[in-house]
């Protein structure tokens, strides 16, 4: 078993213990969860929304879901953090759809201004999972064929449906579905024990 896989098992065990304590209403467990995952969830919300202030509101709402509705989490369908990411992404996308396009442009400019070197910043993975694992994830993404990566990123970060992506990229729907499937399975195979 690799060091990453070992670490992953430890992470999962810690998360399982955390969620049990959160379900029991333990404030300290909730703070531990917040400290561990808030950078990841905040980064996802900010990436989707292109704005920090509203990303804060998303983080607040998602954390309250974790606190009040942790019973909704089904461990059979993924890790605690992947559930929290899905809740965050959906909440951020709901807000994004409600906004006007013009306002979004101004706010995108604002977040760029706040992070002029955003592209050279460490990724959220690095903050949450450590540098070694983050590099593995980054490399796996880089090695993905560009058309697959683009389809996956559009689906995840913009909330476009597969049909919308097909229209935007001027490709048949079946091609987009196949790109997403191949890309996701390839990432799964490449990341292996790091997941």
């Amino acid at each position, binding site marked *: 078993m690799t060091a990453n896989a070992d670490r992953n098992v430890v992470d999962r065990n810690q998360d399982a213990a955390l969620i049990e304590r959160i379900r029991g209403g333990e404030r300290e467990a909730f703070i531990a969860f917040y400290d561990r995952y808030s950078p990841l969830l905040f980064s996802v919300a900010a990436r989707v929304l292109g704005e920090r202030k509203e990303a804060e509101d998303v983080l607040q709402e998602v954390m*309250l879901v974790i606190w009040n509705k942790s019973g909704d989490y089904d461990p059979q369908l993924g890790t605690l953090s992947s559930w929290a990411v899905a809740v965050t992404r959906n909440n951020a996308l709901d807000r994004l759809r409600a906004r006007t396009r013009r306002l979004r442009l101004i706010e995108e400019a*604002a977040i760029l201004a706040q992070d002029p070197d955003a592209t050279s910043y460490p990724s959220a993975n690095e903050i949450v999972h450590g540098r070694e694992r983050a590099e593995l994830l980054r490399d796996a993404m880089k090695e993905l064929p560009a058309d697959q990566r683009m389809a996956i990123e559009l689906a995840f970060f913009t909330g476009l449906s597969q049909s919308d992506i097909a229209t935007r990229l001027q490709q048949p729907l079946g091609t987009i579905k196949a790109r997403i499937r191949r890309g996701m399975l390839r990432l799964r195979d490449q990341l292996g024990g790091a997941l």
Partner: protein
Amino acid sequence: MIDEVMQEQAAAYALGALDAEQAGAFEVSLRADPELRALVRELRSVTEALAGTAPALEPPAAAKTRLLAEIDQQLRAKAPKAAPAPPVSTPVGVRAHVPASRPANVWIPWALAAALALVSLAFLWQSAGLRSQLTAQANRINELTTSAELARAESADLRQAVAKLRASNRLANFRIALLDSLLASSPKTIAVSVWDNERQDGVFIVRNLKPLPSDKDYQLWIIDPKYPSPVDAGVFQVDDKGNVRADFRAKRPIQDANKFAVTIEQKGGSAVPNTKATVLAGS
């Protein structure tokens, strides 16, 4: 063995790219197929890894303070009520003074005991009331302290954000102003105005501004040295928490958005500002 169609659906499901109807249909298959569940679990981890490729941002300290204040409020609401004052019984010590054998004036100690019991009852009642008042005051102080900490943290975050925005060359066309409260009674109020001079429009964000009665409006003004008086930039209302995020345009072409101000005006706004009712100003 999972066929390609199901793999496609599993990948889209893990990414959140299925609509509600498609997701519902897929979940029926998911419940019946452990192999499919295992695939979704793996693909959701891929999704998490994908999410983590976003540039890392730390949420501001104010976010945690606000969240924990909410959690603490919920915990307080869920906590069992404070134990009621103990039931009034014969006060300690009174019974000990009752003689074992009753003399002729047996009513005297009983009368004294009853009087003492009444006094004790009154004292306990008053003491319970005082305790309740003290608890309420302590809770109020805690709430105010939390609120003040939150306001300080939010204000610091906003100032930091504005400083960064100003320092950046990427927003050369933007005029970013931080407006402070001019009212001693509303020190927590703060606002940011982002004005795009090229597009001649802007975004105005305000926090903790007192909601107005229905016959009044807040009105935003842009002070441009080109004009002798402030330029009307529209009216707005805040929500019940005192917050608003509004797009605005000026009624006249702006050359230099030197300063911004907010006044309280009659419903619909005024042509000239009521400067005595200025609540926010800044540059």
